[in-house]
């Protein structure tokens, strides 16, 4: 199915704009962002802090903070307009249609509910399962995500599990209803590299076995390269470049993508001096309306008077 041109894509985002209001002012945090995710495809959304990648993900789940709103654009999930019907469409789609894996499982999980209950809350209610049925399913899901001794852990509270185990519980809860699309917000950032490898393998398994689409937000180009076949690069709320992972990483067209790659330490190419990108993405309030990466480079030219962040 990957790269299929026939039929409608699983997720089609077109011209997405998100405005954020800060102290009475409206600022464009996402400007005209478009991408698609096919079934059984993992799409990476890459960018630095302040690029708007998490905001994009949250707008698709209808989980924007109260001071942010979708001001223009559309997002079609299986042909359903997510932003239409005053946001009521989200309710039908969350859980079974798409679900989200958050970055910080310690925060996203309920600290006073047993992990088994949290995994099956959604599906047990939908299917009208008994407590016993739900428990069996929880054990099955925990096994699927690679938690050792799930029959013992199913009754544990989140604080009794390690960070890696908690993240797996989060993933189990997200995929319990076998969603068609999994939205991931840097789910491996807090994990050890060995656990990260297992979690990435798990996502890849869900993609191939359940035919699930994955939208994976991260700043880590290596992680994207491992998991995703297509990539969109975001900078300061704008889509800089998108295409197949091989194209974007191997033969980047845009200066920003090239700069990001040159700043990333390579495990396979040691001994090369990294090239840092001068400056940082300005805060939303300090960005001119037509802000671009070229302006950041111009601001930090060697003879510029602004504080050089890097050299």
């Amino acid at each position: 199915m990957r790269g299929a041109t026939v039929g409608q894509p699983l997720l089609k985002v077109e011209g997405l704009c998100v405005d954020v209001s800060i102290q009475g002012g409206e600022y464009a945090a996402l400007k005209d962002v478009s991408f698609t995710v096919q079934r059984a495809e993992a799409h990476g959304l890459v960018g630095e802090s302040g690029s708007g990648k998490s905001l994009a993900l949250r707008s698709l789940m209808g989980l924007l903070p109260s001071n942010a709103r979708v001001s223009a654009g559309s997002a079609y999930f299986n042909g359903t307009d997510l932003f239409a019907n005053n946001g009521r469409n989200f309710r039908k789609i969350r859980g079974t249609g798409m679900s989200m894996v958050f970055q910080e499982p310690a925060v996203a999980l309920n600290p006073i509910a047993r992990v088994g209950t949290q995994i099956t809350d959604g599906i047990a209610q939908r299917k009208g399962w008994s407590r016993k049925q739900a428990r069996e399913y929880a054990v099955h899901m925990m096994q699927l995500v690679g938690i050792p001794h799930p029959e013992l852990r199913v009754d544990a509270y989140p604080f009794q599990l390690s960070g890696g185990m908690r993240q797996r519980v989060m993933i189990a809860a997200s995929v319990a209803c076998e969603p068609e699309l999994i939205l991931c917000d840097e789910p491996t950032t807090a994990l050890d590299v060995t656990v990260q490898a297992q979690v990435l393998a798990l996502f890849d398994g869900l993609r191939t076995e359940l035919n699930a689409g994955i939208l994976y937000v991260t700043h880590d180009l290596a992680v994207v390269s491992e998991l995703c076949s297509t990539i969109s690069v975001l900078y300061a709320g704008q889509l800089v470049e998108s295409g197949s992972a091989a194209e974007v990483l191997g033969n980047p067209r845009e200066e920003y993508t090239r700069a990001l790659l040159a700043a990333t330490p390579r495990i396979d190419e040691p001994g090369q001096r990294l090239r840092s990108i001068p400056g940082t993405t300005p805060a939303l309030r300090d960005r001119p309306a037509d802000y671009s990466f070229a302006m950041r480079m111009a601001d930090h030219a060697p003879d510029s008077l602004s504080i050089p962040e890097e050299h």
Partner: protein
Amino acid sequence: MSTFQLAQPASENILEMRDIRVEFSTGRGNDRRKIVALNGVDLSVPRGTIHGLVGESGSGKSTLARVLTALERSFTGTVVFNGDELPVRRTKEQRRHIQMVFQDPYSSLDPRMTIRQSLAELLRVHRIVQSRDIGTRCLELMDQVQLPARALDSYPISMSGGQRQRVAIAKALALEPSLLVADEAVSALDVSVQAGIVNLLADLRDELGLSVLFIAHDLAVVRNLCENVAVMYRGNIVEDGDTERLFTEPRDQYTRTLLSSIPRIRY
């Protein structure tokens, strides 16, 4: 550059830790258990090199850094710094030689002090330079961490994460240490900013001969920066040696698992 004075070379290794053992106890009553955080660790850092320390969370990396900087005092074993054994309770002068840079640049600076005030306080308390030379020394420090002199009169709140981390390094350098302990000092930074700090540490090593114990979980950074790497697993150092050899011919099973887990950019 400056008149940076390193401790006089008295031994080939700036640091030798021998048979370091730390135990914690947790729980109460019948649940009381003993946890061995460091199980007889030996580590040597050759002078003027950056020594990587990698391992999963809970493997004991930070405990080792805390023993080294005397933040953790209940341990057994010996810490030999520059040829002399350091006591558990150290003098101000002994503490000065080993400085630490922490992970979070947002919580490791005093928000109410300008950068100049922070640096001046350190220089005064440790009597590094005479009062009239404090201003000059502050300028030199800014130069060393590649920040403009104007940054001296800024407050941390007006600085980015990368700039704050440079200030944290300047504060460590103010005391003219011989060994810098960087505990995940680049982990919280964006990759574009991280590259600048990694380059700065390499420059300080090359220009000042500074030795660094670089604790990290990002193995790609370690391979790019460090001459030697030690791998920790459950309170033990399972492998220690030349970076290239360790990455190309790992001997220990855990090191092999770790290396095979590293995500790679492929195309």
